């Protein structure tokens, strides 16, 4: 309803504009991100690029595009096909099928708290340098939406609603790919997850069980899990450093990761540390989705480490496969990891289609 009103106003504006230059110019309504208290306390304020400020109309358009199959060649796939809100905006496949049924070689990634990735290096290997640039890629990627931007622009331009929505968001009815990715990036920047049980514990609102507390200590203890050097902590509640490491998955690499992007062999086998928020919804795990369960992940770190030249020096006792956690410590570590899952995030009505 509101939208239609807007459009009516617009039409009036447009029709009058030549007549008088005293018309007030239409401006989309600016939005400032609501930064959760915990993030206000612990983190630097997020950066929104000056050339793509958040607006109500931009975010709404971005959301519509994100869920719309119109972006794919045969109208079967949207971003949400592989980035489903129920799964914290990833999917449950090891590798996601593109529209032609061709499977990629990477596990889809959950999407949240992306504005706090200050280095703005996105995807597992950091090949994309901003959310806007990233959003260009899936549309034309042959193993994803396999479309091309000229067709997509045409389809959007001929659509009954999109031209007016672009008018509202960007003050132009001429749709081009740069505006499409801007709108999508605006929506992605609003995906904030900060309401897990552990967040509430940090805010003094709930208690943790003894197992969860011990699991947190295993995570933080340099002689046990020592996960915090790469995966954040109570003081870095993103639960990632957003940096690239080789965490000892393989002795030889089929996927070079960061090395494939930089061309530096010292980067081979390095991938960006994923956030450990929302693991309850994001299985399978790792860049190639090789682990189906959190137990498998923990076993990997505890006794499954594979040595290679680029393995991170933070990995310990590699000759024994790792630090060999006790089964109690493993169970507690898992309980703690699950306490980082944010059910409000996956159920947030703002993020549903």
């Amino acid at each position, binding site marked *: 309803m509101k939208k239609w009103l807007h459009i009516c106003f617009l039409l009036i504006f447009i029709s009058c504009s030549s007549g008088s230059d005293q018309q007030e110019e239409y401006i989309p309504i600016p939005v400032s991100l609501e930064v959760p208290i915990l993030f206000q*306390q612990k*983190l630097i304020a997020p950066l929104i690029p000056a050339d793509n400020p958040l607006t109500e109309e931009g975010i709404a358009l971005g959301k519509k595009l994100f869920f719309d199959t119109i972006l794919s060649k045969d109208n079967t796939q949207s971003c949400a096909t592989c980035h489903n809100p129920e799964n914290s905006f990833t999917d449950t496949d090891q590798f996601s099928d593109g529209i032609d049924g061709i499977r990629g070689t990477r596990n889809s990634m959950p999407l949240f708290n992306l504005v706090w990735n200050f280095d703005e290096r996105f995807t597992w290997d950091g090949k994309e340098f901003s959310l806007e640039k990233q959003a260009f890629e899936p549309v034309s990627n042959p193993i994803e939406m396999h479309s091309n931007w000229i067709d997509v622009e045409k389809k959007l331009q001929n659509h009954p609603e999109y031209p007016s929505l672009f008018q509202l968001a960007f003050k132009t009815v001429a749709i081009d790919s740069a505006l499409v990715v801007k709108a999508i990036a605006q929506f992605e920047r609003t995906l904030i997850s900060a309401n897990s049980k552990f967040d509430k514990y940090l805010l003094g609102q709930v208690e943790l069980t003894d197992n969860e507390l011990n699991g947190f200590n295993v995570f933080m203890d340099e002689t046990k899990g*020592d996960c915090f050097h790469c995966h954040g902590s109570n003081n*870095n509640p993103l639960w990632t450093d957003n940096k690239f490491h080789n965490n000892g998955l393989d002795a030889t690499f089929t996927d070079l990761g960061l090395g494939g992007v930089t061309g530096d062999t010292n980067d081979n086998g390095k991938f960006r540390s994923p956030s450990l928020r929302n693991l309850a919804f994001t299985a399978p795990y790792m860049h190639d989705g090789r682990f189906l369960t959190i137990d498998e992940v923990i076993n990997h770190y505890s006794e499954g480490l594979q040595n290679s030249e*680029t*393995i*991170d*020096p933070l990995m310990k006792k590699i*000759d024994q496969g790792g630090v060999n956690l006790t089964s109690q410590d493993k169970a507690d570590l898992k309980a703690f990891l699950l306490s980082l899952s944010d059910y409000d995030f996956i159920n947030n009505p703002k993020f549903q289609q």
Partner: protein
Amino acid sequence: MKKLITLFLGLSIAFTSCSSDSDVAPKETTININFTHNWEEDSVTKDDFNNIKFTNEHGEELSIERLRYLVSNIYLTHTSGSSYKVEDYLLVDVNDEETLSYTTNTLLPNGTYNFSFRFGFSDENNIDGEYPDLNIASFEVPMIMGGGYHYMQFDGKFIDMNDTTVGFNYHAIRAVDNTDPDNLILKDTSFSVTLGEVIVKDNSATINVKMNIAEWFKNPNEWDLNVLNQMLMPNYEAQLLMNANGKSVFSL
């Protein structure tokens, strides 16, 4: 507008003409600090990383993969005794060139100064969770090890007695004995470094701070990586050794 410009011109001429009167009047001064690193005579940049090319005093061959450290309470102290704070703290990361040179403008008079800083945070400033930029950089120390922040994260690999290449994590933090988790014994092992004379001339100064990385393994304690390599954060004795060795790593 024009008037403003004239006023400006007038004022700046007035300022310039006064400048010779006294060198003691504080003026807007540009201070440039460059952090450089070396292994004895050889300079070290991130291009030298990931390569087993260094040999420490005890004889272990080693590589560097990460070297980040914190300096705080950065001061210039004038021969007259007045001191001027340059910055509260800086995180230097050899992998991140932007952090290797730092420029600021401060009000201070020309003259001769002593340059000093603290390696790490003193207890007074080592407040858990207090600094968002350091939180984002994952530089914190877990509460079970006393909280606050790392002084240094120095990671690499070395060839051990069995001829295998293994990791080391030379992480300097406030010393902690956590044998009794409910009763941590903590000791501030940050230390202040007085680096020597800096001359501020024509309202500017460039300060080149050198770290000889080899010193961390050398003086006064010859470091045996076979014995002390990983899990050094909760190792109280190791932290005291780092504290002692660190005192000779910096120079101008």
